[in-house]
C-alpha cells in the first residue's frame, strides 16, 4: 500500500565549496506525523531543512511535495507549497509588532494597512489556541513568545508542513512541554511536522519516526516505538568506541578559583547562569555537563572577563576578579580556550601564522615598538614539537591546518602562558579519536602540574573517564556536583534534563555526591 507523503526528498546533495554538507539524503514525512531529524552538530540537519524552506538549493536530488516533484527556489516558493520553517535564529523584525511581522508576508489584504489587522491576527491566534498580544513589539518579547509568534506566523500562511529547527534549545522544561502539546495538536489536525534536535529524550517523547544523519550522510529512519536511546546514539555517533582515558590521581591543592552566587545574563537578556556556586582546586579537572546552551558559554566568558556579570563573586586565590579586564585576568594565570561550533571563531586569527597567533597574547610584553617574532617563532616550534602538531612550518596560516591541529595550537598557546587555571570548552569538538586523545593527554599533563581545569564538555562518557568531578548545569542552574567515578550516565542525564536536582537533597547523601555541592562546608 503506497501512502502519500507530504514531503519526500530523494538523493539530496549539497556542498559548500569543497565541504559536502549533505550527501545523498532520503527523507519522507507523512501528513499527521512528527518526524525527528537527529544528528550531532554539523551533521547537516539544518542545511537539509533549509533546502525545503528555499534558503538553499540542492546541488542534485529531487523534492516531492504531496507526490509532485517541485523546485523550491526561494522562501516564497516554499510558502506557496505550504512549507513553513521556524528557524533556530528567529526571523522576526524586532521593531515591528507581532501582527506586523505576520502581515509582512500576507497576500490577502489590501495595499493599505488597516487597524483591524491586530484583531485579525489576535482572533486567528486564539483559534489555534495560542495566546499572543498582536500589538506587542518583538523586542519586548521573551524567547518563548517569539517562538510562538513564529509558529502562529507559519500557520497563518497556511503551512501544512512545519519544520522546527532546534525549537527546544532555548526553552525551559515547562515551555518545552507546552510546545510539544502544540505540536501534538497540529499533528492531529493533519500537519506534517519535522523537528530538528539532538536531544534523545525529546526525540523519544514527541516523534513518530526518527531520521538520523551523521556527518552529512543519511544513516537510516526508524520507528520511534521500536528504538531506544542506546540504538539512536550508535546510529548518530557511528560505531561505539570505548574510550579508556587516564585519570591520574594528583595531590589536590586549595581552591584556586571559587565562584559564589554567580548570576549572568545572555545576549538576549535572559538569565544564562543563575546563582551558581562551585570551585576548582589545583590538580583536578572539574567537568561541566549540560544540554547545549545551558549557560556554558556565558560562564566561560564571565570567568575570562569577556562578559559582565549581574551579581556574585569570582575569587581567584583570594582576590575577587569580578570587573577585571580580560588582560588582568590573563595575567593572574587564568586562561580560557573556547572552541565554538565553527572552531576558528574564537581565540585564533585564521589567516595569521602559528607564530603570529602565539604572539597575540603577549605582543605587548616585547620592549620597544617592534614585534618580537623571534621569541614567538621559538615558542611556536616548541608547541608544534610538544603537541605533535602536523604543519608544514610555523609560518603556515592556522586556517590551512586541519581541525585537530588548530585546536592543539589554541590549547598549546594557552598552556604556554603557564596558567594556573584553564577554562576549556569543547576542546575536542569535531575531532577524530586520535586528536581527542592528544588533547586529553595535554589536559592531564597540566593537571599533574597542579593546574585547575574547568572542562566544559559534550560527551558524557569522556567526561566520566577524564574528569575528577562533574558539575551538571540545567538552564543555568547547578543540579549538583558529583564524583566522576561514582556517578552513572543515567544519573547525569537525569540531572541534565532537570529531573534530578541533587543540590536540594544533599542531606540524604545519595551515592556519588561530592560534598562540594555545598561550598560553605569547605570554607570553614
Amino acid at each position, binding site marked *: 500500500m503506497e501512502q502519500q507523503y507530504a514531503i519526500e526528498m530523494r538523493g539530496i546533495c549539497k556542498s*559548500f565549496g569543497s565541504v559536502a554538507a549533505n550527501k545523498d539524503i532520503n527523507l519522507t514525512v507523512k501528513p499527521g506525523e512528527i518526524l525527528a531529524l537527529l544528528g550531532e552538530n554539523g551533521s547537516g540537519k539544518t542545511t537539509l531543512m533549509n533546502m525545503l*524552506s528555499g*534558503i*538553499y538549493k540542492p546541488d542534485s536530488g529531487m523534492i516531492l511535495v504531496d507526490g509532485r516533484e517541485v523546485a523550491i527556489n*526561494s*522562501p*516564497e516558493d516554499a*510558502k*506557496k507549497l505550504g512549507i513553513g*520553517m521556524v*528557524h533556530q535564529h*528567529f*526571523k*522576526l*523584525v*524586532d*521593531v*515591528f509588532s507581532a501582527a*506586523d*511581522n505576520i*502581515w*509582512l*508576508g*500576507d497576500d490577502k*489584504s*489590501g*495595499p*493599505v*494597512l488597516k487597524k483591524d489587522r491586530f484583531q485579525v491576527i489576535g482572533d486567528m491566534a486564539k483559534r489555534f489556541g495560542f495566546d499572543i498580544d498582536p500589538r506587542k513589539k518583538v*523586542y519586548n518579547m521573551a524567547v518563548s513568545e517569539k517562538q510562538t509568534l513564529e509558529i502562529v*506566523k507559519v500557520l497563518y*500562511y497556511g503551512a501544512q508542513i512545519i519544520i522546527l529547527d532546534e525549537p527546544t534549545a532555548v526553552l525551559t522544561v515547562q515551555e518545552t512541554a507546552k510546545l510539544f502539546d502544540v505540536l501534538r495538536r497540529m499533528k492531529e489536525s493533519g500537519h506534517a511536522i519535522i523537528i530538528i534536535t539532538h536531544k534523545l529524550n525529546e526525540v523519544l517523547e514527541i516523534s513518530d519516526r526518527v531520521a538520523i544523519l551523521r556527518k552529512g550522510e543519511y544513516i537510516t529512519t526508524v520507528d520511534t516505538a521500536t528504538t531506544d536511546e542506546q540504538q539512536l546514539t550508535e546510529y548518530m555517533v557511528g560505531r561505539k568506541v570505548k574510550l579508556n582515558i587516564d585519570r591520574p590521581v594528583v595531590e589536590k591543592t586549595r581552591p584556586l578559583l571559587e565562584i559564589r552566587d554567580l548570576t549572568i545574563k545572555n545576549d538576549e537578556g535572559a538569565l544564562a547562569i543563575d546563582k551558581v556556586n562551585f570551585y576548582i582546586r589545583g590538580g583536578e579537572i572539574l567537568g561541566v555537563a549540560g544540554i547545549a546552551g545551558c549557560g556554558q558559554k556565558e560562564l566561560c566568558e564571565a570567568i575570562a572577563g569577556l562578559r559582565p556579570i549581574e551579581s556574585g563573586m569570582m575569587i581567584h586565590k583570594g582576590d575577587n576578579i569580578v570587573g577585571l579586564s580580560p588582560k588582568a585576568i590573563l595575567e593572574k594565570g587564568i586562561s580560557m580556550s573556547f572552541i565554538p561550533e565553527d572552531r576558528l571563531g574564537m581565540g585564533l586569527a585564521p589567516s595569521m601564522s602559528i607564530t603570529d597567533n602565539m604572539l597575540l597574547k603577549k605582543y605587548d610584553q616585547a620592549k620597544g615598538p617592534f614585534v618580537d617574532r623571534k621569541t614567538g617563532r621559538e615558542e611556536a616550534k616548541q608547541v608544534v614539537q610538544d603537541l605533535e602538531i602536523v604543519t608544514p612550518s610555523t609560518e603556515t596560516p592556522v586556517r590551512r591546518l586541519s581541525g585537530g591541529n588548530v585546536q592543539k595550537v589554541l590549547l598549546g598557546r594557552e598552556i604556554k602562558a603557564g596558567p594556573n587555571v584553564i577554562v576549556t570548552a569543547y576542546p575536542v569538538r569535531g575531532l577524530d579519536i586520535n586528536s581527542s586523545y592528544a588533547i586529553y593527554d595535554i589536559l592531564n599533563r597540566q593537571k599533574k602540574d597542579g593546574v585547575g581545569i574547568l572542562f566544559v564538555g559534550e560527551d558524557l562518557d569522556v567526561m566520566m573517564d577524564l574528569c575528577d568531578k562533574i558539575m551538571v548545569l540545567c538552564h543555568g542552574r547547578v543540579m549538583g556536583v558529583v564524583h566522576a567515578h561514582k556517578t552513572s550516565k543515567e544519573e547525569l542525564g537525569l540531572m541534565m534534563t532537570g529531573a534530578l536536582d541533587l543540590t536540594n537533597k544533599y542531606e540524604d547523601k545519595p551515592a556519588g555526591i561530592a560534598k562540594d555541592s555545598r561550598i560553605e562546608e569547605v570554607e570553614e
Partner: protein
Amino acid sequence: MNDPINVLTLFLFNIVLVNIPLLYGTTGEIVVEKAGSLNLGVEGTMAVGAIFGYLAGCMTNSLLVGLAVSFLAAGLCGLLFALLTVSLQANQNVTGLTITTFGLGLYFFVGKGIGERWPAMTGASALVNGFAPKELPLLSKIPLLGKVFFSQNLLVYLGVGIAALIWWYLSYTKTGLRLRAVGENPGAADSVGVNILLYKYIHLVAGSGIMGLGGFYMALYMSGSFEGSNCWINGYGWIAIALVIFANWNPLMAIGGTLIFGFFNTLQIYSGPLAGAFPGVLGWLNAVPAQLFKALPFLITAIVLVASSVRKREGSGQPAALGLNYFREER
C-alpha cells in the same frame, strides 16, 4: 525698507526658499536607507539630477520635463548604486563615495563641455515661471506665516508634498511595511516571501530620483548660472545625510529638521540685516565673525551626529540592517 517686520519675514521666507533642496535630499535618502542601504552619494546624485534636469528643462522650456529628467538622471545613479551594492555585493560606503565623485565629475564635465553655448535660464520662461512664487488662496493671507510658507514656488510645495507622501507610504501601506522589514531584517522579510532584490532596486532608484529633484531645485535657485569652480549643490547632499539621522528616519521630522538647519544656514546671509533691524536684541550678531556663520550648519551637523549616536535603540528609526549587504545563502 528697513522695517523690522519686513526683514524678519524675508529672513524666514528665505529659510524655506533656500533650504528645500535639503528636504528633497533627506527624503530621498530616507527612502534609500529604509531599504537598508546607506548611500553616501547624495551630493553626486543631486549634482547629476541638477545638471541634466536643468539642460533638459531649458531645451524644452518645460518645468515638467526638467523635473522628469532630473528624476531619471539621478535615478540612474541610484541604479548604478543598486547594481554595485545589491547585485555585486560591493561595500556600500565606498560605492556611495564613488557615486559622489562620479556625479560631481559628470556635472563639471557636462557643464564645461557645453561652455559657450550654455543656456541661460531667462531664455526658458516656463522654468522662470515655475520657480516664481505662487500664493496659495486664503492660506497666503495669514499674517507672517502666509508669506513665509504659502507664498513659495511650486517646487517648495512639491517637496513638502513628497515628504508627507513618503511618510504615509512608509507608515500606512503594506509595501511600506515590507520595505521597512527589508531594512530591518532582510532575512526575516525574505523568509516570508518578500522579494528583497526588487524592493531594494525600486527604492534605491526612487530615492535617488527624489534627491535629483532637489538638485534640479538648486539649479533653478542658482538661476542656472554655471561656474567652473563651484557646484550648485554646495555640500547640501552631505547635510542631507546628517538630516536623515536628525529626523530619525521620519520624513515629517525631516521637514522640521530642514527648517532648523535652514535657520542656521540662512543666518549667515541675514545676520547683518537682522542686526540692523533689531539693534537692541540682535545687535551682537554683527560682532560674530562671518566664518563662524559659514561653519555653523556643519558644526550643527557634527553635534547632531554625536547626539544621535547615544540615542537608545528602541526609539530609533534607524534600520537595523543599514549598510549591510544581504546574501541569502550566507552561513
